[in-house]
Every structure is written in structure tokens, then in C-alpha cells.
């Protein structure tokens, strides 16, 4: 059983109705993530990465393909049978401003999944919520405050605490650092790594930032137009990308410490040729 990937997808297809037909946002994607591992999904706007995330946690229902959570296919399970499985796979959202109920306190937000998990005692829930708030690095004074009183980074921590409350085996993180300042982003990555070391949780980490992906992931899958264009170990894909689109993405990632000379326009060359050809699509 321990060899079974905690999360896998096979030939997954997600479509949306549009005037005059359907739009295929995810088009035959497959991958596998082992326990305690991190798979990064990389791509630009419209590539289908957020739709993939929403399908994996079954906020959307795929038209075909399989989503194997601990070996069990949840791709098209009805809600009644899905509900007991939902705690196993949780999601942290991109927008730290829109994904928390502004009228609830941090303690209430984090305690809600505990009640769903069957913790009947109010005191037990409060105690565990306090532990989770502490675990994500917020002070106990945060417990009785509401989302508008927190910074973006603090809200993202509350979102992580809420997700962890269900004791998930997999956490889907959709651009969780992209709205944050770079110093806050670094703290967030460190927090996620610590939690992974302690709990053995697996991450599916969606990002457009290759630097962040390099810090956090073991493997990476590059998406474009709903399809996977390249996947493999993160170190290999970032040092020797195979697909022209991955090479354009890699060339467009600006690492300040890797540049030499004044206004080195040539740095952009690798990003431009294939990207402009692609832009005509």
C-alpha cells in the first residue's frame, strides 16, 4: 500500500460549456505524487493549472479520466460518497483576501473543519484550533481576530491552518505565494517544508514562479493549453529543459544573481523567440 501514490491522475479531462460547444481546459493530464513528496505544476495564465487543482479536490467534476486518492478513483464519485473522503485532500487558495469569511474569527475558521471531522467538544475544538494557529506561526492573539485585520501573508497562514485541520494526506496549493511580498513568500515556503517534514503530507504545488518551484518541489509538470508539455525531476527540468516552451519559461525567469553587466538584454533572448511564436497561437 505504501507504494501506491497518495494522489494520481490518469488521462484527466475537464471541460466547460461555452457558446457553441465546449472548451477543454484540461486535456488528458496524468501524474502521480508519492507520500511526503511535492509535485509542482507550472504554467502561465489560461494553461489549465487552476482548473486542474479544482478538479483534483472535486470542486469541479471531470468529464473523463481518473483521480486516484489513495488508490480510490474519486473523479466522478457522487457528493454523498465523496464527502467522507474530502478531508484527505484539501486546498489552499491563491487569493488570501477572498478565500476567508471576513465575519468569522481565525479560531472559528480553523475550528469549522474540526467539527466536520467529528470533534464534538467545543473545548477540544478550541484547543486544537489554537494548536494549529500556533503551528502556522501566528501568535495566540490572532485567534479572536477576523480576516480584515490580517496581512496577506497572515491570511495565507490561516488558510493553511484551516486546510491542516482536516489532517489531509494531500494539500493542493494554488499560487499560494504569488500575492505575497518576496520576504513573506520565503517564510511561507519554509513553513510548508517544515509541515511536510513533520507530517509526511504530499503537496501539489501550483505556481508560475520557477524559483519557488525549485525551492519546494521534487518533480515538476509544465502545462500549456490544458496539456502537459514536459515533466520530470525539478532539478533536471530547470537545468536542461527539453520542450521549447519550458525553455522559454526558463529564459523568462529573471534571477538577479545570475545576471552580469549593465542592462543585459541578451538574457531575454531565450524567452523571446519561442514565446512570440507561441503568442500567435
Amino acid at each position, binding site marked *: 500500500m505504501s507504494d501506491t501514490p497518495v494522489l494520481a491522475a490518469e488521462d484527466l479531462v475537464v471541460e466547460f460549456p461555452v457558446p457553441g460547444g465546449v472548451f477543454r481546459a484540461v486535456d488528458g493530464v496524468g501524474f502521480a505524487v508519492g507520500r511526503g513528496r511535492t509535485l509542482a505544476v507550472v504554467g*502561465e*495564465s489560461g494553461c489549465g493549472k487552476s482548473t486542474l487543482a479544482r478538479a483534483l479536490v472535486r470542486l469541479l467534476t471531470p468529464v473523463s479520466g481518473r483521480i486516484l486518492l489513495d488508490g480510490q478513483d474519486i473523479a466522478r464519485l457522487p457528493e454523498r460518497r465523496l464527502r467522507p473522503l474530502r478531508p484527505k485532500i484539501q486546498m489552499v487558495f491563491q487569493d488570501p483576501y477572498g478565500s476567508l469569511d471576513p465575519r468569522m474569527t481565525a479560531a472559528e475558521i480553523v475550528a469549522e473543519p474540526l467539527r466536520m471531522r467529528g470533534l464534538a467538544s467545543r473545548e477540544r475544538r478550541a484547543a486544537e484550533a489554537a494548536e494549529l494557529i500556533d503551528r502556522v506561526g501566528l501568535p495566540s492573539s490572532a485567534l479572536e481576530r477576523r480576516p480584515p485585520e490580517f496581512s496577506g501573508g497572515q491570511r495565507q497562514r490561516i488558510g493553511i491552518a484551516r486546510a491542516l485541520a482536516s489532517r489531509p494526506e494531500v494539500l493542493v496549493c494554488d499560487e499560494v505565494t504569488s500575492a505575497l*511580498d*518576496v*520576504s513573506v*513568500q*520565503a517564510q511561507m*515556503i519554509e513553513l510548508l517544508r517544515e509541515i511536510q517534514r513533520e507530517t509526511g503530507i504530499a503537496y501539489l504545488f501550483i505556481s*508560475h*514562479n*520557477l*524559483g*519557488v518551484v*525549485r*525551492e519546494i518541489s521534487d518533480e515538476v509538470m509544465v502545462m500549456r493549453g490544458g496539456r502537459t508539455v514536459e515533466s520530470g525531476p525539478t532539478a533536471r527540468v*530547470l*537545468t*536542461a*529543459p527539453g520542450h521549447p516552451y519550458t*525553455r*522559454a*519559461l*526558463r*529564459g*523568462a*525567469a*529573471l*534571477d*538577479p*544573481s*545570475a*545576471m*552580469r*553587466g*549593465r*542592462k*543585459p*538584454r*541578451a*538574457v*531575454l*533572448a*531565450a*524567452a*523571446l523567440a519561442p*514565446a*512570440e511564436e*507561441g*503568442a*500567435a497561437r
Partner: protein
Amino acid sequence: MSAAPRTTAAGPDGTAAGAPLLRVRDLQIELITDAGVVRAVDGVSFDVHPGETVTIIGESGSGKSTTAMGVLRLLPDELAVVSGEVAVQGRDVVADPRAAAALRGRAVSLIPQDPMTALSPVHSVGRQLLEVVRLRRPGLDRAAARARAVELLDRVRIPEPGRRLRAYPHQLSGGMLQRVLIAMALAGEPALLVADEPTSALDVTVQAGILDLLLELQESTGVGILMITHDLGVARLVSDRVHVMRNGRFVESGEVEQIVGAPAEEYTRSLLRSVPALGGWDGAAGRDEPARPDGDPS
């Protein structure tokens, strides 16, 4: 605190001799908010000379965008109190707000942050571009103004510029819209561009095209650029000089190689450490490969 304002800004290549396009001295901006008066910009000084890019880098709330908006006098008088000296081509826009109105869109143009919301959705791109073309050159007849608009779209590398004039903003991608906005900025034939996070709403491959365009425009026209960004990679690529801003002040100022390669201030070092390193790759062009020039073990 250690960063003394540069009073002479001649670059190492000597291009920056002569009067600056933009001279800012002890700029202070107080914003009037519900929570009281906030000093968002607390005494910053800098120059931008022809042909050079000066970047203000900082995190959210540092005051970098407020500085840019203050320089352009785009902050409403009832919400912001601006003091100090801001001279655009020698004319002080703090002392004389009418000078600011006369210079904006001519001597100095803004490239805004979010291209998706900067244009009116109910008018075509062409109509909005023609409006600024006519402001700058009121003598042009309809056909000549249109020809100028097509020329500007071509200048920012928009394919089929004649056809794009009829497009509405929602029909164009974010990168195309940012090119349109750069074309509108260029319509004023400015000596100075103020670019406020011009690529932060864009995908990275699209960002690469916009930054390449700005670098090329500067090479060919000598336009001065005041760049506002939170992105150290962008700052390293486009800048001659960099000012690191925090809590309304410049923490550190210097040539770009020094700020990124050998920062003197702990805050600058911590910012640089926060940027995830990408390491080398087999497609790296024009850069020898990176031992991270850090030297700071902490």
C-alpha cells in the same frame, strides 16, 4: 539612513552629464487616510538623466508607487500633501501644479501597473490612442493622426497595427494591452517614462517581451525611465541605478551591480536572500554561470 542622496549622477560612461530630466529633492508625501495622516514618502532624493533607468524597489507599503504618483502629481490634493522639490526638465511641479499638467503626457508619461483596467472598455483602442496623438499634435488631420497611431502600434511591435486600432480592450491579451499603453505613453514623445510595475500583472514570457521593448526603446531614443518594481530580477535587468525603499525612505542607493552584487545594508541583503535562486541552465545566454555572489553565510 546611510544612503546619502546623490547630488551628481554622472554614470560611469559619462552619458549622464548635464541637467537631469528629473530632479527630486527631499520629497515628502503625506496621505490623508481614515486612520489619520500617514507619511508615505519621507524625504527621498534622486535624479534621472537622459538614457538611464533609475529603479525604486520595495515591498508593498514601502512608498514606491506613491513616490511615482507624487512625481507625476497624480495624487489628489485633498488626499495627499506633497512637499520638497520635483523638477521635470527644470520645471518644479511641486511649486507649480499647472506645470505638472502641462508636462504630463508630453515631457513625462506614465506606463500604468494594470493594463487590464487602464483603458476604457467602451471605446476602441484606436479612438483612445488617437485622442492622445491629437493632444500632442493638434494640427494633424484625421488621416495623418491615424497614420501616426499605426506607426506607434508598430513601434511597440503589435502585429497588424491597422487592424488592431479597431479592437476593443477586451479583445486583446494583457501583453498586447500593455503595448498599447506604452504606445499611448510614447504618443506624447516624452523624455521621461514613469513605469509603475509595468509587468507585474503579466505572465513571465509576456513580461520578457515588454522589458525587451522598453530596453530597446531606451537604446534607440534615449528616453529616461523611472521604474517602480518589487521584482529584483526586473530591477537587475533594466536599471542603471537602484534605490531600495522601505517605510518611505531610501535604505540604500547605488549602481545596480553594487546593489545586487555587494549590498551594504542588511535590509537589501535580506531581500536578495528571499529571492529563490534558480541556478544555471543550459540555455543561459550572456551570463557566466552563477556561483551565487553572496558571501553571506547567515
